[in-house]
């Protein structure tokens, strides 16, 4: 598959992720947990791209998420490229590129994302409420996102089969 087709396929998946994330139906909401599709997809994509490419995708995703998210103020524009770069870096130097790594990285990034976001945007909330949020919303959300990411990983692995960035 030529490079342009990879980009086109990934842009389509990204658009689908945004449509799934920001609609009134909240189709994948389970109790208080709601998956973060764009972040899940970015993590999987970063596992197959170079650090610089991942970073560029991270910046674009962050800016778009910021334009949709109600708790933004540039937060996603900063944290998305950071996650994209770190995931790409970790996969190339520390982890193996396999399904287990994708699940571990998605859960870790989502947990950090949800917790930091909550602490920054709701600083006046008590420690008890914050803990309640982490247990009842952040952890289940991270797990749901990981389930979605694992499926995406299998798909991306297929299309990136022989196209891993040379090291």
């Amino acid at each position, binding site marked *: 598959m030529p490079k342009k087709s990879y980009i086109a396929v990934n842009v389509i998946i990204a658009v689908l992720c945004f*449509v799934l*994330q*920001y*609609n*009134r*139906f*909240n189709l994948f*909401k389970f109790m*208080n947990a*709601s998956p*973060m599709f764009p972040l899940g997809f970015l993590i999987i994509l970063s596992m197959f791209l*170079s*650090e*610089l490419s991942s*970073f560029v995708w991270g*910046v674009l995703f*962050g*800016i*778009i998420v*910021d*334009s*949709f*998210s*109600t*708790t*933004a*103020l*540039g*937060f996603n*524009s*900063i944290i998305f*490229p*950071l996650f994209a*770069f770190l995931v790409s*870096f970790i996969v190339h*130097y520390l982890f193996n590129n396999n399904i287990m790594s994708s699940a571990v990285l998605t859960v870790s990034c989502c947990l950090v994302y*949800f917790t930091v976001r909550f602490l920054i*945007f*709701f600083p*006046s*909330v008590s420690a008890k*409420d914050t803990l*309640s*949020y982490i247990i*009842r*919303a952040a952890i289940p*959300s991270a797990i749901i996102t990981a389930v979605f990411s694992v499926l995406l990983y299998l798909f991306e692995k297929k299309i990136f089969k022989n196209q891993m960035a040379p090291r």
Partner: protein
Amino acid sequence: MRFFFRSRQFRIIITVFLVVAIISLSFAFVGSRMTPFTDVAGIITAPFRNAYTVIESEISDFVTAYRSGNELMIKNSELSSEINELREKVAEYDKTKSENEFYKKYLGIKEENPDFKFTPATVISHDGLDQFGGFTINKGSASNIKVRDIVISDEGLVGIVSELGTTTAKITTVLSPEVTLGALDGRTNDSGIVSGNIQLSEDNLCRFSNLSRSCSVAIGDYVVSSGEGIFPDGILIGTVSNIGSDKYNNSIYADIVPFVNFKELRNVMIITDFNGKGGLTPAGDK
């Protein structure tokens, strides 16, 4: 790995990251403005989001019509075609009727409060990750909207404008702990403070607290804004659903079910001006 940190690629990443981070943080700390990148992304994506909202509404209407149609078909299978025809007419009629009611109610609010200046807006995206039902609207600073302007619907108080772009704005609802306002019990005039918290928001509730122990608030009472702070007085907030006392037994609180269903909101009104606006602004706001 060591070579990577010395590479040109890494320097580019660090430079771009610093530029994005500095611009984002400086805009965040100066007047709750969207960053230029987000603003441009908002402007570019706004037409698509508007189009998507229309499609989303159509799907929602179709599903509702389909469900109600199914019930009727079970009862009157031989009249199914007739029902379909009628349903289409009813859907059209309901749409027109609800639109009329929507504007009629605003007209009522406008007549009661001639000092209010409204800007109508449409909800263009809901943030599923926002525990407090926040959403984005299709109007921004270009429509003379400002941060902390009050947002209402035909049913009652929705929240405030928390972040502003040129053609879009983010709304924080009354379910959020970030929104606090003075309120009165509509029947007894007992005063207190309405604010949200994370646990109540899960049940779509907010709390009317700091009520005196001698107050006569009762379940079913209407709660309205008292006019303290940035909110005008007399805006409907919700009904009292539960009454309790704080853990030190010093004051009474009441849980409120807001009149507005935040997840179903499609159209809202922004109160851009009213008599007494700016009388009390939070520290740091100009």
